[in-house]
């Protein structure tokens, strides 16, 4: 139950772009990776948390922007709908691979560019 709610806290911090809650949810979550023997995440997530905690000192301007919600990506104006940057990239991947893929996008852009110039 506690793991589930920690997970939902992580999701809520991303959706609402709350950087402080994001750090706390990661700190709550890291112990579970040790418990479930997920070695790589157990090794590298503490490093990531350390970097996030030290961000105020090492990169104050960046930390200021992160606290303002710039550590996530937003695709719409709707509240509680921000997504992680890597999730945004996965969605771009899906766009490039699906419905004809990047070649179709390329041809469409060429078609419209040629159409407009004529």
């Amino acid at each position: 139950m506690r793991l589930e709610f920690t997970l939902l806290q992580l999701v809520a911090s991303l959706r609402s772009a709350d950087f402080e809650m994001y750090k706390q949810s990661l700190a709550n979550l890291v112990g579970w990776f040790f418990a479930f023997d997920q070695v790589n995440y157990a090794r590298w997530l503490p490093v990531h948390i350390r970097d996030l905690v030290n961000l105020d000192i090492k990169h104050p301007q960046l930390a200021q922007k992160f606290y303002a919600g710039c550590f996530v990506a937003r695709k719409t104006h709707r509240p509680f709908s921000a997504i992680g940057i890597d999730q945004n990239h996965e969605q771009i991947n899906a766009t490039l691979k699906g419905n004809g893929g990047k070649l179709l996008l390329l041809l469409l852009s060429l078609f419209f560019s040629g159409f407009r110039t004529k």
Partner: protein
Amino acid sequence: MIARSTACNHALKINYKVLHRPAPVLKINLSFSGYPQELLLSEPNKCHEIGLPDKYALVKHCSLNVKSVRVSLSDQCTVQRTEEASSPMRLAKQWLLDKPESEILPWPVYNSRAERFRFTCITRTAVLPLFSEHAHDVSMMAHAMDCVTNAINHINPGQTPVITGDQPLYALLRSIQCLQPETYGEDQIFVMMGSLHIEMASLRAVGTLLENSGWVEALVDAKVTTQGRAESMLRGSHVTRTRYVHEVPQFIFIHSQFLHPLCANVLYVSFVNFRSQLLCCTLCSKRLTRFTKKVMTRMILHYFHLKIGTKRNVAQCLNLNTGTL
């Protein structure tokens, strides 16, 4: 500017967010063989054909022993403990007790209404020309850091570049940072681990806990989903679907714990048996029909041989006649 290299082959993508001032229009050419030679992302009618510079297109060889990396300790390494006001359980309780029972909103709706920050800007996203090298190559990752730094210096001078990668790429990037602090040090580039992949790893951890617990059977019997999809949820392969199916029973359980002590008693009676707890959680879902609740209740009583008092409690919680059980 925030950038990330994807784990898939032949891909290097950059996602930029303007932090200080608006970004200029990106004009990018593609140069793979057999394809037309120009692509403009934002303004097709003003496309100018420019060749890719060598410092972008040529990947320099880089040989580093990334397996022998030890991340140095830091003096400022203090993680603040979770405050009581923002603990996960407290937030869930706040959600449930904030409104009367008849007006309980779904979790995303409640959070969207209660969101403190209101953002108006949308993240700008662009795709840079793709590389044929593998993303998990050390040379490619070092070159990606160079490309990102150059792009940031062009778009928004003075900003610290931020690169996001999934766990293997994060480990690689962080190892390169530790081995070459002069070129790619922590003071020059900030590397983040992808939050989506952290969430997926957490869902896999929950799936490990739920495996062989009867959770899949409960979902299938309750007609929430099919067998194959329920098993894929244990691995967290479909994130959104898995999160939905975790939200419903868990919040119903906490709802029953706070607002229906009788139902909570039923759940705590069989708390030791995780399988029956999950069945009860699914059973109390408002999404289930009355017929499904009856079938599920019979299944619980049959499987776990619950006592008569518990049987009455279950019936009262579900507004069923005890005789029908």
